[in-house]
């Protein structure tokens, strides 16, 4: 009565192993056997068997890829012999320049003092999410309280790392912008006025 099954030419466990390989190569976090079973619509025991098959296929030495069992589940990693090459891949040379978006955002925060994302977006005329996230990640700005005390938007200010990168002893050493405004308040007003015109 098993006849129809025999028509399948490949070993079904091998097929499951291929599916697991695919799932592991697209995942951005380790996957548990249960998660793998749910995604491949198979049962956990068979998934565990198939994982052994995958592990064999990628046994250290045979491939540059290794299947690793970590706390959260299973994941691919680079073979230990390839550690040096991987390190070279990630240790990129120092980036020479900030993107125009990052530079503009940084200039606003540096010259106007703590400002919020909506503030920055209003002046730049575009959403500030990614530029702010980028500068936060680089440690060039950090959080500095909120607008109007508790409930308002988070404000950002430049960090000591910012001053080091730009070779400044303090923010007061920033190049003067008398042509734009005498102080932060005047510069802010001017930028708001221009931004309004630009969006008109």
């Amino acid at each position, binding site marked *: 009565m098993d006849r129809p099954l025999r028509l399948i030419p490949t070993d079904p466990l091998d097929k499951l192993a291929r599916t697991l390989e695919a799932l592991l190569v697209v995942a951005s*976090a380790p996957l548990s056997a249960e998660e793998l079973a749910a995604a491949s619509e198979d049962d956990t025991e068979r998934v565990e068997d198939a994982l052994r098959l995958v592990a064999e296929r990628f046994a250290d030495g045979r491939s540059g890829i290794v299947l690793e069992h970590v706390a959260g589940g299973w994941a691919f990693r680079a073979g230990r012999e390839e550690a040096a090459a991987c390190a070279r891949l*990630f240790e990129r040379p120092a*980036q020479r320049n900030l993107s125009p978006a990052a530079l503009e955002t940084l200039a606003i925060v540096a*010259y106007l003092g703590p400002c919020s994302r909506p503030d920055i977006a209003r002046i730049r005329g575009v959403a500030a999410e990614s530029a702010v996230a980028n500068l936060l990640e680089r440690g060039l700005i950090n959080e500095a309280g909120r607008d109007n005390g508790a409930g308002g938007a988070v404000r950002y200010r430049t960090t000591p790392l910012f001053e080091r990168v730009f070779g400044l002893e303090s923010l007061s050493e920033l190049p003067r912008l008398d042509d734009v405004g005498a102080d932060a308040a005047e510069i802010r007003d001017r930028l708001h006025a*221009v931004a309004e015109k630009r969006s008109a």
Partner: protein
Amino acid sequence: MIVRELELDLDVFEGPFDLLLALVLKEELDLRDVDLAGIVTAFLERLAEREELDLEACGEFLVLIAALLELKARALFPGESAELAELEPEEAAEELARRLAEYRRAKEAAAWLRERLLSEGGRFFRVGPAPLTPKAETPLAPQDPAGLAGALRLLAEEPADVSLSHMALRFPPVSQFLERFRALLTRRSRFDFETEVGGLTRLEQASAFLAVLELRRAGELAIDQAAPFAPIRITRMAQEKTAQQERTAAWTVRSA
């Protein structure tokens, strides 16, 4: 709701809006024969069938119908378009053709991308870092503070004016005719509309007629016409001077 798929049932055309646009552009359909109000009605009916307001569709429709109105206005006032806009007719035609072609090209490209997305739907890949990878750090080279000042200066720069001249179909101001007819009516108690506007362009005549209607609404004059297409006769109405002056002041403000 997809505007270009809007089904139309007009006297001279039956089919989707997109086809109508194509036919008009290729001049296989004379826009002067097309009932634009009918298109607006069809759109509003379709819009009303829906529970929520589709702003995206409204915006797209508004632009398309405005372009058609502009084209139709040009067709209805042949030979005068050069005086109406800053652009020469050839330039205006060039500009319109360019914009419509660009719009259609964008639609084509979007259609290609949509198909591509469907056919590539089976391609899955990881977005972002691998699970077992140390976080990469990219240090920043020393920077020049002048770059910050430069970036802020650029942000403070006045934006260039965006020219919309090609969009404008200039009408002579109605206020100009209001003054002219008021002055005329202080000298004469009645006049023929056609005689007064005889030498003017059709657009100026239209403006002048709007002025006459406005003065009638204000009770400053009476209009009568013996039969359709017969001369339009304008007669001064007797009024208290103060009331008239008040209205004059109001008009000056509104038409400024």
